[in-house]
């Protein structure tokens, strides 16, 4: 009997240590998403990543590198279909593949050009076309709004709208990607509301984190 009881306790404790789910469904109680450097609002029925992503692996000059960032993703139907991504990149690794930094004195179109050049280094985006590049304000800060498009292998047009700005804490982008057909216009308002709700937090001014020890092996 004691053994059974012990087993039940262990089982319940293990259940309590279960990892957090990757996605969190948004409802009335949790519209606002708070990360370290920023917060923003998400519409009902959409999901967002429960925790921010804090690093990514990129191929730079033929070698794999670990780059720190802070990124959260929002989707309704799955990121294969549509994805809204809010990302902060640290100044020294703002444009890692083209090896450029972000500087607060850069003008918005200059930052936009670097961002597009960086995107074009990614597989599948080599022929990314810029449809428009306009000044925009994000959380009161001067920035850019880029509308871009590319075609996937099946000839499906994928449209991307990115808002971005650079300040002394880094380079921020709010990006929405979806098939141009049906999905892009359908969910654009949700994205525009998200952009309108975006707000930088005090945490943005804390020193950037260290690369985790295990990731240093691969860096």
């Amino acid at each position, binding site marked *: 009997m004691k053994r*059974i009881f012990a*087993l*039940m306790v262990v089982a319940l404790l293990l259940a309590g240590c279960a990892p957090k789910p990757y996605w969190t469904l948004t409802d009335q109680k949790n519209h606002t998403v708070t990360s370290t450097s920023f917060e923003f609002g998400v519409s009902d029925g959409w999901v967002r990543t429960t925790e921010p992503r804090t690093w990514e692996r990129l191929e730079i000059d033929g070698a794999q590198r670990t780059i720190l960032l802070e990124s959260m993703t929002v989707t309704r139907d799955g990121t294969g279909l549509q994805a809204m991504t809010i990302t902060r990149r640290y100044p020294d690794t703002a444009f890692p593949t083209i090896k450029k930094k972000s500087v607060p004195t850069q003008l918005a179109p200059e930052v936009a050009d670097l961002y597009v050049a960086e995107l074009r280094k990614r597989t599948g985006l080599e022929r990314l076309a810029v449809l428009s590049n306009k000044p925009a304000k994000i959380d009161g800060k001067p920035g850019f709004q880029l509308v871009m498009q590319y075609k996937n292998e099946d000839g499906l047009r994928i449209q991307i709208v990115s808002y971005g700005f650079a300040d002394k804490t880094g380079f921020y982008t709010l990006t929405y990607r979806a098939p141009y057909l*049906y999905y892009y216009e359908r969910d654009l308002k949700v994205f525009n509301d998200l952009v309108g709700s975006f707000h930088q937090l005090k945490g943005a001014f804390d020193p950037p984190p260290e690369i985790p020890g295990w990731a240093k092996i691969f860096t």
Partner: protein
Amino acid sequence: MSVRNFVALAALLLAGLLTPAHAGDTPHWVHYRLLNGQAHLPKKVVVMPVSVRMYEVTAGGVQEEVPEWSTQAEANVHKAVSALLAKTAGMQEVAMPRLSASERAIIDEHMALYKLVANTVPTSGLKHKLRRFDYGIGPGLNTVLARTGADAVLMVYGNDYASTAGRKTKAVLGKIPIVNIFTGGEVELGHSFVHLGFIELKSGDLLWMNSEYRQGASDMREYDDVEDLIAAIFKWYPGIERYREQYAYDE
């Protein structure tokens, strides 16, 4: 099972360490509008251009499409699908009309979007979407196909991989201990895959979809094999109550 073991098992279940059945057990998907009676099952259906690619796979894993095989597989699939639609109560196949170049471009892009949707659904990791399945491709196809009088289209695509004799031998030898050290271990033999999905023309909603994947002996150049594959997919049609019991429960 002893009382002790039973209680231990109950404890594990309570802790949620055993997961309930998931989408992998019931492969079909049903739009929520069918579940709550807001949509009706397709009646007049245009079968979209069938796309089936058939490949030959060598012992070394080199895959090469064989165009004649693909043509034959496509013809078999279309024939089997048409036969099944004819047998299904309340359903009728409507011929695809002749299309202009611009209409063809609209069709092609919608088919590309459908492929993206169909590939995203099973891999999205979003369990709540199973309960309220509401995917679609928008009403754009209706601009081209409304003139047919159809209320739905059927998307059909698939592929088939047939192994060469050398590959089959390698597979057999790969299962023999010690011998397989020299032949390079186990290799995967061919497989067949077909996907079907009904799109309601007016709304663009993906009303129902299902796929069948078979490893080994099936050959889509053989009509009987294809007929069997299609029947296996349609066995789940429409499966509304089955889907409701599996996923659309209230929590």
